[in-house]
């Protein structure tokens, strides 16, 4: 590379970072509009958080593989303990609680658990002798690693995050090469258990969300309100949108949560289909870069870790967008890099930081291999 650009900067994966920064800037613009043109309300803290977590991700990227392997299990264990503490606090406090206030930051352990599960499973399958993959010894510990946090998060109750943890874990297991028939069996079991869990396991409000997802017009002012208003916002934006700051759905408060879960609808109302395609395009670029990192990895641990991280980011994006477009029930999952909120930004930046780290391992290995 030319020497005009300093090496540490030129080394960064700009193929991913450039679209990401563009997306975050768009997110800040949307948040500015969602706060009725008030930059300081949401947009400024959004940008500051991004800057802080991008720095954190850059620092993460410097970690060596051995260190990461080493903290995989202890880190996982610490977060499980935190989850239990949160649960106990909630029990004592007499209500659902999802966070611990550490004074400096409000920590939401269930968010941290998403990358932690992926890391722990990657470590587990990375260490597991390949011969054991098709045996129960590959399944059982992984099931525990996924199941314990899922159960704790479900008890909070936070269905969306529990599913995200399960999805990330399942993708790692799938990529680890576990026999396909297990997944088929799992799918069958899920098909049997899901209705039972739905009727006996879910809270009333969660059940209602599913029903209204199936028929939002049945209750346009009640729980179908979110979906209906979100679709109105997206649909009324048209191809080019109503213009920056002109979205009536968000400005007049018809759109619920216009700056968090439904930020995409806020964006689509003002930026139209073009804005939506841009957002989808950015996520495509980021995820494709993630997969390229995974495929370029040399060892199983790195591959599984990067694949799991991509899946975790993808899960956020897919569920959120399906929700705002009326293709999935309303679950409280924000849109990465656009929604206002520290926890989701942190989780997604941890995932990206991990991918950047693996990318660095890869390029170092590549250089070493070349040299």
């Amino acid at each position, binding site marked *: 590379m030319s020497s005009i650009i300093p090496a540490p900067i030129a080394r960064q994966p700009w193929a991913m970072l450039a679209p990401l920064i563009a997306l975050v800037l768009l997110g800040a613009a949307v948040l500015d509009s969602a706060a009725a043109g008030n930059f300081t309300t949401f947009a400024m803290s959004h940008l500051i958080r991004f800057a802080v977590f991008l720095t954190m991700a850059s620092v993460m990227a410097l970690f060596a593989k051995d260190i990461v392997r080493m903290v995989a299990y202890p880190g996982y264990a610490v977060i499980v303990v935190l989850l239990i503490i949160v649960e106990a606090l909630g029990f004592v406090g007499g209500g659902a609680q999802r966070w611990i206030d550490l004074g400096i930051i409000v920590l939401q352990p269930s968010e941290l658990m998403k990358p932690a599960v992926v890391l722990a499973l990657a470590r587990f399958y990375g260490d597991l002798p*390949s011969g054991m993959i*098709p045996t129960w010894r590959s399944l059982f510990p992984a099931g525990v690693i996924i199941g314990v946090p899922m159960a704790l998060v479900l008890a909070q109750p936070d269905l969306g995050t529990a599913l995200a943890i399960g999805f990330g874990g399942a993708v790692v297991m799938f990529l680890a090469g576990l026999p396909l028939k297990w997944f088929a069996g799992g799918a069958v079991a899920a098909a049997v258990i899901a209705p039972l869990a739905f009727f006996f396991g879910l809270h009333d409000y969660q059940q209602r969300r599913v029903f209204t997802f199936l028929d939002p017009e049945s209750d346009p002012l009640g729980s179908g309100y979110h979906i209906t208003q979100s679709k109105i916002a*997206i*649909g009324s934006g048209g191809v080019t949108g109503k213009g920056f700051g002109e979205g*009536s759905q968000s400005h*007049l408060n018809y759109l619920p949560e216009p700056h968090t879960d439904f930020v995409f609808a806020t964006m689509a109302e003002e930026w139209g289909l073009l804005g939506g395609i841009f957002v989808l395009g950015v996520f495509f670029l980021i*995820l*494709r870069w993630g997969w390229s990192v995974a495929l370029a990895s040399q060892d199983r641990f790195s591959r599984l870790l990067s694949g799991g991280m991509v899946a975790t980011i993808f899960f956020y994006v*897919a569920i959120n967008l399906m929700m705002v477009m009326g293709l999935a029930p309303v679950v409280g999952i924000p849109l990465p890099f656009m929604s206002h909120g520290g926890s989701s930004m942190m989780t997604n930046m941890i995932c990206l930081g991990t991918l950047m780290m693996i990318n660095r391992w890869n390029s170092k290995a590549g250089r070493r291999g070349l040299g």
Partner: protein
Amino acid sequence: MGLRRRRARRARPIVSPATLGASFERRSFVIGAVQGGIGLLLAGRMAYLSIFENEKYRTEAESNRVNLSLIPPRRGWILDRNGAPLASNKADFRVDIIPDRMPDPKREIATLAPILGLTPEKVRDLHDKIESARGFQPIEVASGLNYDQFAAVSVRLPDLPGVVPQRGFSRFYPTGPSVGHLIGFVGPANAEEYEKDRNPILITPGYKIGKDGVEKQFEQRLRGIPGARRVEVTASGRMVRDLATREDVQGKPLQLTIDGPLQDYAARRIGTESGSVVVMDCRTGDLLCMASMPSFDPNSFSDGIGRVEYSMLSQDERVPLRNKVLKGLYPPGSTVKPMVAMAFLEAGLSPTATVGCPGGLRVGNRVFHCWQRRGHGTVDMAKAIYQSCDVYFYHFAQQLGMDVIAPMAKRCGMGEEYPLPVLSQFYGTVPDPAWKMKKYGQPWQPYDTVNATIGQGYMLANPLQLAVMAGRLATGRKLLPRMILDPSLPQPPSMDFHGNHVEVIQKAMSDVVNGPGTAGRAKLPIDDVLMAGKTGTAQVVGLNISSGKGGIWKHRDHGLFIFFAPFDNPRYAGAVVIEHGGGSGAAYPIARDVTTFLFDPAKGMEALNALEKQWGGTAQQRLESRYASFVAAAGENIGRAPRRVEDVFARVDAESRALQSKPQPLETGAVAPPPEPIGTNASASPTPSPSPTPVRSTTGTAAQ
């Protein structure tokens, strides 16, 4: 066995780092493909929403954003004959609530109460209304607010869903209680009215419809056309800005024949009594005044009847909710005598024919008393009228018969329902033999004729009919009362009275006031105008129960007076009826002052001001202080008011109807005429009946 198991295990494909690597690449490709697929699905869905359903969602976003609200039209004014408003509109700030949109009405009213200065009674009335009203019906919380209160509510709107502050117009009746019965009042439409006419304007906050009187009768004309306003609103209903406004079209004004100042004067002049005053124009039949008191303040009814108000009005034995001009029926007493005299004249009786009055008249084996037990001496027609001699009428009525009197009563407007734009009028009874036979299955008796000639017995009339009778006798023209001003002068047909009969009656009735008659004190304090009249005292209970002059209010005689002026060229005619006034002495001073006011307002006001000083203020002021003392006295213990104003009025109506249609006892004897209070030469107090002549005996035992 062991061998087979080992063989089976070996049959499994070998898993090595290499195969796992390949599997990773395959599977990551699958996952990537699935993710790409979902990405395309999302892009497709988004394109579908924003391109193909754009139209639909744009409309929905628009209908979210834009709130079309109706602007209640300003009601047409109700004017008096000179164009002064009897009912106008006052710009004001008001606050309504729509219970359907209130998650917690109790809390919100508790927030509103201190801002709007609501009294505890008012708060309880509001809770009653919220409980019983259908949720979509707006309920008025307060009107006539000042800007600060209005602003204070407006800024709290985000915390007060379902509360609607707005600036608008409210109905204003400048003379308040004076026009209560005549004009009626306005109020929000009730559920039944909305069900009948599903006009969205009916449930627009601040919109009121006529509920009684002229307001109700001319609802469609007064209503006007609502305006509309397109406003940008937030999801919580807060207005952001006006987008477009279409002004309302005010309802058409309505001009009545009523003379506003006269109406107000008459109502106030009734004072603390319960009664009514009717004045009509003798040339056109225009009703100049239809005052009925005590009354209610229509201004305070527009938000419904509060519990205190209802309690105060319904417990009043003087029935402030009844329009006595049209729905008060009274025995006309001696006020029918000029009419009976006209009947005699028309039947051929000479006005100079005389009869000796010894204080009673024997018919068959019974004696009918004159009110003047000492007798009037020789009585001709004029004296019979101005001295109100009963014997004269007994005597000639026996000769000429009821068949002469009853048709004349009807010709003069008694028992008649007039074509007036009013909700209802009670039209009383003119008894005759056929009527009695039909109603009681009994033949007409001489004492029935005797009772009828002095306006007692079965005869009943409302004050309006008495005024019409006075007008027709005074002018000899068949005047028809009118309430709506019509510039065209009607040509009332002649009554076809013969010769100088009208003049005879005019002169005799003038002598009642200006000569040696029973109402000398009714003489106008104006030199060149002479008023003619006829007193009447209608007995309510028998003399054996009460003398009719004092004691229990309900037992006192009604005081009546019919009049016209000037006597020889009648310009105005009217009637005053004071319920339980204790005799005609309660009625004719009012007629005198009202007529004085017609000819010389300053002089009339002078008299009224002096009286109102004694009574403690104008009718409106007294009503307000009565309300205040009622609240202070009853306070917490007042029961709730009926849900709807209409019910209150329907109840009053039904009660008075029941009262009127109560099977009247069969008259079995002559009514002893109650004494006229003032007689120039007969001021003696009535002596008790020498013989126990029963009056209105309810037992049915025949009097001797």
